[in-house]
């Protein structure tokens, strides 16, 4: 194992509910250093809970000065200003959708015009399970079979629907911070290979020490752990046409 870790799931910014916060890049980098995390694909709470444009602007400023931080832009459909919505994520290397927070059904009829270009550019689209019902996720993946979808934080109860979705959609990827059922990581790796599993912490809302220990004590070999820890996300981002 080379201990290179690339976190696909962390956030900057304050929360409405007063939850744990990384106010700025300095805060986030200190938390990453504590756990030995080299790099992070970062989102901003403003993009999720306030305004995607404002959040993306803030995120771009916060991450610009540090090569360890890669911005993941917030996106939302906007049929009234489709050009504006498309332009907002035109240069993105990764995008996150927040359908529940932004109050729209995550269905192909509303997201299709936005996801098509992202699929063409092979831009990973992140979405938290709490933001998107299983049935909608299935329809999105089916409607955009080449779209790289990264499902964030499926929980310990998720294996039945998750494994069925992974079986049907080869470009669906899974972030592991909340997959805390006993033996869940090894079971997914055995059935689907490690290429579709991604290291993430869910910080600051969840504690990255858990997934780090799960991988350090993993039954998987060193190469597999390296792929999960950083290699798979590196590959996904390298494939993006910017």
């Amino acid at each position, binding site marked *: 194992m080379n201990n290179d870790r690339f976190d696909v799931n962390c956030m900057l910014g304050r929360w409405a509910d007063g939850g744990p916060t990384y106010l700025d890049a300095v805060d986030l980098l200190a938390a990453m250093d504590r756990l030995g995390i080299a790099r992070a694909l970062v989102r901003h709470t403003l993009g999720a809970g306030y305004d995607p444009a404002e959040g993306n602007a803030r995120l771009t400023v916060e991450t610009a000065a540090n090569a360890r931080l890669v911005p993941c832009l917030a996106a939302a459909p906007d049929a009234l200003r489709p050009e504006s919505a498309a332009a907002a994520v035109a240069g993105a290397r990764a995008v996150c959708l927040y359908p529940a927070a932004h109050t729209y059904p995550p269905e192909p009829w509303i997201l299709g015009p936005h996801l098509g270009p992202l699929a063409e550019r092979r831009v990973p689209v992140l979405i938290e399970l709490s933001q998107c019902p299983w049935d909608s996720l299935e329809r999105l993946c089916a409607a955009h079979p080449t779209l790289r979808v990264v499902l964030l934080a499926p929980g310990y*109860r*998720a294996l*039945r629907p998750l494994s069925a979705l992974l079986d049907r959609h080869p470009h669906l990827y899974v972030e592991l911070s909340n997959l805390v059922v*006993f*033996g869940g990581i090894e079971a997914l790796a055995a059935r689907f290979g490690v290429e579709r599993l991604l290291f993430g912490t869910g910080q600051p809302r969840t504690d990255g020490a858990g997934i780090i220990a*799960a991988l*350090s*004590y993993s039954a998987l070999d060193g190469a597999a752990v390296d792929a999960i820890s950083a290699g798979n996300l590196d590959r996904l981002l390298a494939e993006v046409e910017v």
Partner: protein
Amino acid sequence: MMASDEYTMRALVERGESLAALGWRIIDAHAHLGPTGTFLIPTPDAASMVAMMDRLGIDRTLLASHLAISCDFARGNDLTAAAVRAYPDRLYGYVVVNARYPEEVEGELRRGLDQLGLQGIKLHPNFQGYCVDDPALASVWRCAEERGIPVLVHTWDRDPNCRPSFFAPLAEAHPTVPFILGHSGGTPTGVREAVAVAREHPNIYLDICGSLLTSNELEWMVAEVGAERVLFATDVPWLDPRFELGRLAYARLSVEEQRLILGENIARLLGWG
């Protein structure tokens, strides 16, 4: 207590090495066994659990089968006892009773503790749909008092049957019974309530398993109630013990606090020397 930085708990966890190198007793105070109807567990069997204990360096695990805390407590207690017999000195059991079957509580307690050789009592008011103040549980508290054994109870934030604050009157009425609040109320709000109750009642203990606890909350919990009343617990196979171990390893606790939490506290409650 511990020699070099190479063999701190955190260093061992980072390298994925057994915690046996610490030379401490490591005991998981809250575990289960077998499939659960609510979701898929890939390897819920005792052999897989013991193999993971070996990998992590956990000496002993106290469990109550999933069947016991769901629809058939008596048959579930038999499953618990069978696993304990299959792995002597590694697996130990809690007897589960269900207040929804009041006429069977006292007899099942005696059967579990005297015939099956189980070590403590486990209640799951959430799954089995009764409140911890149910009069049918009077024999549970009496039994725990007479035998000096702990009672592990599932707790969760704002649960109408078993939120942490419900244990204040119980702990006061039964001051010699060690009450273990499973999951310590679970959520950040629940943990705050559990800590508040524990601060007022010295016979309340907090177990740390639960997918929502963080290292920071653990540090705060220890500072508030003292490491002597915090118990290492994993909820395996419902949850994966590696996650819980990681959070504990990265929490900023002293070596002595880690040692107490990892095993000495539950050993003391069970009279394990």
